[in-house]
């Protein structure tokens, strides 16, 4: 029997509400609001209350998939990154860097988002970068 409580920050939007995951036997059972957190003071919206659902979802992607002959196949990270890099380079060479756009996510850290925009601007060479939390 293992039961622990893991404090975390909600990843759905930029507000940064404090959440508490109730983990029983290694599985997140429930998300609770952190009562002493200065941002949300024990309250959450419906997305925050259901934060554990995308962690436990059977649809969750656990390894990279590469489309081969019209079907998605499991691949290693090295293969997937290599294929992505080659294709991006090909598109950029053929149609110009502005033919590529990058959408980043609120479900990753600030630093990762920074890296993503740096990659878009400095490596690909376009300003087409946007974020789902920029509502």
């Amino acid at each position: 029997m293992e039961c622990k409580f893991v404090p975390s920050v909600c990843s759905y939007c930029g507000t940064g509400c404090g959440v508490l995951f109730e983990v029983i036997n290694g599985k997140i059972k429930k998300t609770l609001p952190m009562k002493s957190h200065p941002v949300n003071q024990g309250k959450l919206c419906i997305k925050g209350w259901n934060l554990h659902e995308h962690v436990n979802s059977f649809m969750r992607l656990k390894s990279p998939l590469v489309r081969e002959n019209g079907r998605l196949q499991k691949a290693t990270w090295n293969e997937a990154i290599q294929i992505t890099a080659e294709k991006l380079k090909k598109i950029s060479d053929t149609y110009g860097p502005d033919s590529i756009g990058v959408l980043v996510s609120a479900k990753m850290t600030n630093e990762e988002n920074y890296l993503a925009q740096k990659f878009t601007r400095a490596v690909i060479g376009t300003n087409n970068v946007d974020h789902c939390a920029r509502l």
Partner: protein
Amino acid sequence: MKSKIKLWLEDGTIDIFIGYKTVKGHPLPHCFTLSNLEEIDELIVGPFRYPLEGIATDIASEQPNAKIGILVRDCNTRALNVLYIWNQLDRNNIKTVTVNCCPSPLKQHGDCSYLEPEKAGNYKKQVGLDSNMDTASLEAFGQEELLGRWMYEFQKCIKCYGCRNICPVCFCKECSLEHPDLVEPGKLPPDVPIFHLVRAVHMAGRCIDCGLCEDACPMDIPLRLLYRKVNEIVLDVFDYDTGTNPDQSPFSVLGDEVTLEPKPLEVA
């Protein structure tokens, strides 16, 4: 108290103890077990409240035979009584450690986050309902005005389901609040007052007046007051005092015998 819990864990009276511990400056619920026995010294008691008995229910649903120790206040005790009655927890598997709660003539000092609820602002007092009111002073408004005031409170709802999710006595697998015929999915704001009344009806004979729902409500809807009113009816009509007794069955509020004659259902 700490040595008693330690003893219980060591001699196998309980497998797990649910209490509070400070983690990164936040008082958070924590499970103490035999494998982290030294942590029991960090057990704290204070005004913070989480639905500990809800956590116990979750543990019991994973491992029905687990012997659970739990830190309780009066509201937790009432919640446990309701959970025993509804067969969500086995009372033989639960050990409680009672701590200070709401102040009374016998207990001058009390520890509860609800002792000083937020004061209602002027606008809320003018058009809505002050959460600190009692059910008797509600009646003073008169039916029509009271409905208007309740509607003002209900229409603020953002349908976060926080009141249901935090509730220690909400354990149903299928919830009426998710039934598409009663509450239209994806509609925001929800249909008022049906959303709140569906929950209020289900809280009759269930609500143990802990106030966690009101604590968790981002829109400051006086939910505790609403459920208190509903429970008052249950007490007046059926003499059923929710949570005070672990033996009163909710299925026999009308008495032990059925006095109505059984009739076949009329098919419309």
